[in-house]
């Protein structure tokens, strides 16, 4: 029903893309609905802010809408789409790294709080199981994730949470499987070193 299109529906997808290329907005919408849950999940996990994830969602699909006519099926549609999304996320994360100190604080009902903290809190309420995971360990891991470079973070996210293969990740990032592999290597090494005796 929902989620990514299966292998057997590839031809349907091609038809949808061709129809959308000809200006059929209904076909475009169907195409969006096939992928937008993963797009939003990637964006939300990488930028960890509701508003920013929302901006990235809009920007990504508007770019797709605008440039779809030039899509020539050289790569799969989903690779093309994820490339747009990850590039937007990477830009966003790089900018945020620069203005990080002044900008991660948000106003809440209980006063000023770190943006990440508020996201983490909301999530903890949503999933009772997660309350069990020691809060300290969780904070530690969040901090380690923040310490990764944007690209390491993106590779990590796509491999770990989206379950994409390294070859596909390399293609999305416009690099080789080998480079994606090295990136993932560095990310896990940093995480392991940072967690020390915690695990």
């Amino acid at each position: 029903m929902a989620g990514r299109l299966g292998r057997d529906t590839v031809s349907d997808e091609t038809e949808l893309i061709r129809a959308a290329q000809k200006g059929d907005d209904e076909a475009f919408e169907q195409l969006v609905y096939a992928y937008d849950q993963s797009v939003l999940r990637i964006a939300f996990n990488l930028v960890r802010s509701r508003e920013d994830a929302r901006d990235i969602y809009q920007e990504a699909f508007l770019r797709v809408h605008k440039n779809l006519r030039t899509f020539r099926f050289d790569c799969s549609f989903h690779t093309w789409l994820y490339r747009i999304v990850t590039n937007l996320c990477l830009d966003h994360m790089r900018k945020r790294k620069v203005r990080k100190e002044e900008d991660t604080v948000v106003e809440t009902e209980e006063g000023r709080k770190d943006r990440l903290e508020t996201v983490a809190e909301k999530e903890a309420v949503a999933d009772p199981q997660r309350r069990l995971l020691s809060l300290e360990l969780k904070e530690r891991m969040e901090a380690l994730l923040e310490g990764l470079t944007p690209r390491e973070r993106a590779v990590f996210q796509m491999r770990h949470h989206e379950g994409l293969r390294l070859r596909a990740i390399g293609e999305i990032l416009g690099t080789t499987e080998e480079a994606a592999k090295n990136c993932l290597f560095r990310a896990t090494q940093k995480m392991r070193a940072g967690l020390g005796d915690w695990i």
Partner: protein
Amino acid sequence: MNCEKAREQLPLYVYGELEFTPEEEMEQHFSECGECREALERERRMHAALEATAVSAPAALLSECRRELRSVIRAKAERRPWWRRWLPGEFHWMQPAAAAALLAVGFFSARLAPVKVGAETRNGEVTASRVRLIEPDRNGAVRIVLEETRQRDVFGRPDEDRVRRLLLRAAQEPADAGLRVESLDLLKAETTAREVREALKQALLEDPNPGVRMKALEALKPYAEQAEVRHALSQVLLKDESSGLRTQAIDLLIQHRTGDLVGVLQELMRHEENDYIRLRTQRVLQEMKASVETF
């Protein structure tokens, strides 16, 4: 394979990214080397802990994004020349006059076709149309069948029959999980109607989106004593892949400790991997003086 090489390849092994032969060699090495086996366990524990850092986007955010995108794209479409707006892409080469002629044929034939005039279509305005069929005849004329989509606003309270029917339909809208969440949220207050409870149960057991399933479970909470609802909750507990949902299901089920609960919990102990759920199950089984043995 030596330990140094094994440690180097460990992350790729855990991610399932090794080729067939190196993977075989790794497994061979693990069977011989306790230290590397320990390192493997540690790596797996780290993966499990990292799993918990994944956040899922709120279901309401998805529908917000979709609405916003739709309105932006619609606004863009309205800035296009009118004949482009009305015609599918393959006709864009046409000049306005030809396009107008084509449209006239379309509307004319639509008017000839029997149109059901009822409450459903009376106030409907055509908001989109696409050509479904083009059939030239011998005299050089052409028959064109247009399919038109009408958009209509319906206002009313969720307890009105016709509104409820529409909400029930929206609760099954396959393309839009956000819409399903919103309609279930409104139907939550209408659970005295049997059809609503049926729809909620169906969503709980069959909806592919965990956010929608969670919404359905919340709505069914007041009925946690009913046999049918308990049966659905047991199914969730035994089969749902979301540990959040399983946690909610067990919390609800154990509020009423009926005899059939023991069997469900014992079956659960055989495969449940979530620590919290195992812990609760164990405790309840002990309190009910039932065997915790899993064999």
